[in-house]
């Protein structure tokens, strides 16, 4: 029986006492003992630890034993295993006025493990809450009990593996508690988290997609971006450039969308949803395969937005050139007109955004002209993909990598992204000139 709660504060050199938070720890363990249901668990309690008055001993003996059938059962079972082990684990609840050995605050690092002792912030980031990355790609709230359970998972496994592996294991365990509490699960491959919940998000796509039916699609694209494209040096450099351009104006667009619901709706229908479909079409082209035609047709059809202006393509192209026609602005609500003005101001100076986000939109619009002729639509899609790839703005990527690796950088990026062999060859051919010249189109 070996889970101990630190009850007594630490004496400091000046004779003062550093107070610890045993009651918060007790409350958090009680939530685990109830499997997240918040029901009292009669078999849960504690008593003074024999031989060490600084600690109390956690008692937990549910009958019957919980098993592992449900997430709540697994949480309770984990607690039972921890209190039943021969090894002793100490839990120390700390407050928000604590800093670790290197001066890091609990805001920057909410927990600290030392051998079998876990110190964790019970203040929930001084009352500001905390967020983690959900499997939906969004920032989801967590709390101190979630953090404690996560840290106990590390202690339970005591795995000496790499950070990614160890964290994925603890997050997978943490997800039992999140499921039991009815919370969105945490993405085991994303270790991000932070202080504040909700945090300020200033991404246009994230703002629009949050909670929407196509959020899953956006998340799939994010994963492809982060785990495939950005796994290469060239992909990272490209997205560094794209993000710099994008965040120059996305906050302004988000602010308009908050104030003007019609603008938010139009951004979703005209830009974000078709963009999700457009990128899925390009991804399908890059992957190839037997079902390519049906995938392309499906995304072209689902991307049809009857509420969008008939001349959306020309509107988008004009925005890229820094123009927006007065007769169009007159027909729009104030918020949407402001969004278009912002885009017309920034897109001409944002080649990576135009290539990566805007140009795919125009490809999908072009493909919409071939509805009913799937073969031709697929042929045109592949041609457009090849043409699109050849126009990738590569100046920054080239400058961000050493010159001698330049060709390798592009090849590696293509290898990661374009697994459709015939398309891979045509893309390589299209980019060959740029590689030799060392300049972008």
């Amino acid at each position: 029986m070996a889970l101990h709660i630190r009850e007594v504060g630490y004496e400091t050199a000046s004779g003062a006492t550093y107070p610890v938070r045993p009651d918060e720890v007790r409350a958090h363990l009680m939530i685990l003992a109830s499997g997240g249901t918040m029901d009292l668990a009669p078999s849960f309690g504690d008593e003074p630890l024999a031989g060490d008055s600084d600690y109390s001993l956690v008692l937990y003996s549910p009958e019957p034993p919980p098993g592992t059938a449900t997430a709540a059962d697994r949480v309770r079972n984990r607690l039972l295993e921890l209190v039943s082990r021969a090894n002793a684990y100490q839990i120390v609840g700390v407050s928000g006025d604590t800093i670790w050995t290197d001066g890091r605050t609990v805001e920057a690092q909410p927990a600290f493990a030392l051998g079998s002792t876990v110190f964790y912030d019970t203040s929930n980031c001084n009352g500001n809450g905390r967020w983690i990355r959900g499997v939906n790609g969004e920032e989801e709230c967590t709390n101190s009990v979630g953090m404690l359970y996560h840290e106990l998972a590390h202690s339970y496994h005591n795995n000496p593996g790499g950070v990614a592996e160890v964290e994925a294991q603890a997050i997978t365990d943490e997800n039992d508690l999140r499921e039991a509490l009815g919370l969105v699960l945490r993405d085991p491959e994303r270790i991000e988290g932070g202080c504040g919940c909700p945090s300020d998000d200033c991404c246009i796509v994230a703002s629009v997609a949050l909670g929407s039916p196509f959020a899953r699609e956006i998340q799939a694209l994010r994963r492809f971006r982060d785990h495939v494209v950005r796994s290469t040096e060239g992909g990272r450099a490209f997205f560094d450039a794209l993000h710099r351009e994008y965040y120059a104006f996305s906050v302004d667009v988000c602010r308009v969308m908050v104030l003007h619901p019609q603008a938010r709706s139009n951004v979703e229908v005209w830009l974000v949803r078709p963009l999700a479909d457009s990128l899925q079409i390009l991804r399908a082209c890059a992957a190839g395969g037997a079902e390519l035609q049906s995938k392309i047709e499906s995304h072209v059809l689902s991307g049809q937005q009857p509420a969008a202006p008939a001349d959306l393509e020309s509107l988008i192209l004009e925005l890229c050139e820094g123009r927006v026609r007065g007769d169009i602005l007159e027909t729009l609500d104030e918020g949407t007109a402001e969004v278009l003005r912002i885009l017309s101001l920034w897109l001409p100076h944002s080649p990576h955004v135009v290539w990566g986000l805007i140009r795919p939109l125009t490809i999908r619009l072009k493909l919409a002209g071939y509805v009913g002729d799937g073969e031709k639509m697929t042929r045109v899609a592949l041609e457009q993909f090849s043409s699109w790839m050849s126009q990738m703005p590569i100046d920054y990527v080239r400058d961000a990598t050493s010159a001698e690796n330049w060709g390798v950088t592009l090849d590696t990026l293509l290898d990661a992204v374009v697994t459709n062999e015939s398309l891979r060859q045509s893309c390589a051919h299209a980019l060959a000139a740029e590689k030799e010249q060392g300049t972008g189109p």
Partner: protein
Amino acid sequence: MSEALEAVTANATRAWHDDTGMHVRLRIVNHSDRTLFVGRGKRRLQFDADASLLTVWLCDHELEESIGQRCAIGLTMPSAVALGAGTEVELSIDLPTKIFQMQLDGDQVKFIERTTSEYRNISLRSAVAETPFYYSPRGEPLAQQLCRWGAPLKVELAVPAKGEPQLGHSEGPCQ
């Protein structure tokens, strides 16, 4: 460093000690023509008792540690304030009277009591960037990504002792 990042200025407009702790109000102005992001959360505190210097880090610069150590995992992302083109923001940096720092003496854990009112010289370190911090799962270790986010933004000031006139009221802004 891009020109945009150099176009951010910061100065302390108010600073004081009182019964609740130490307080600084920092005015940050974005003179560039684009939105920029400035670190605003308290990430690290460094106390130098001999120099009566407290360095408050609102970013993770100069802190690239071995992430193989167990204690280094679980780092959080820095929070940032979005600062529109040509706009300004006031950041509030408040620290309690007492802060407790963990120290390790072999396997023994100790805590040192830090009294913020004993620190008159304050160095505020933040980061200014063109994007929020964005974690790259397939990139270098998180600690290194955090360390490299943004260009440094530094403000140094002397905080009047408790009971003395507040900086910014009778003395004016301090660079």
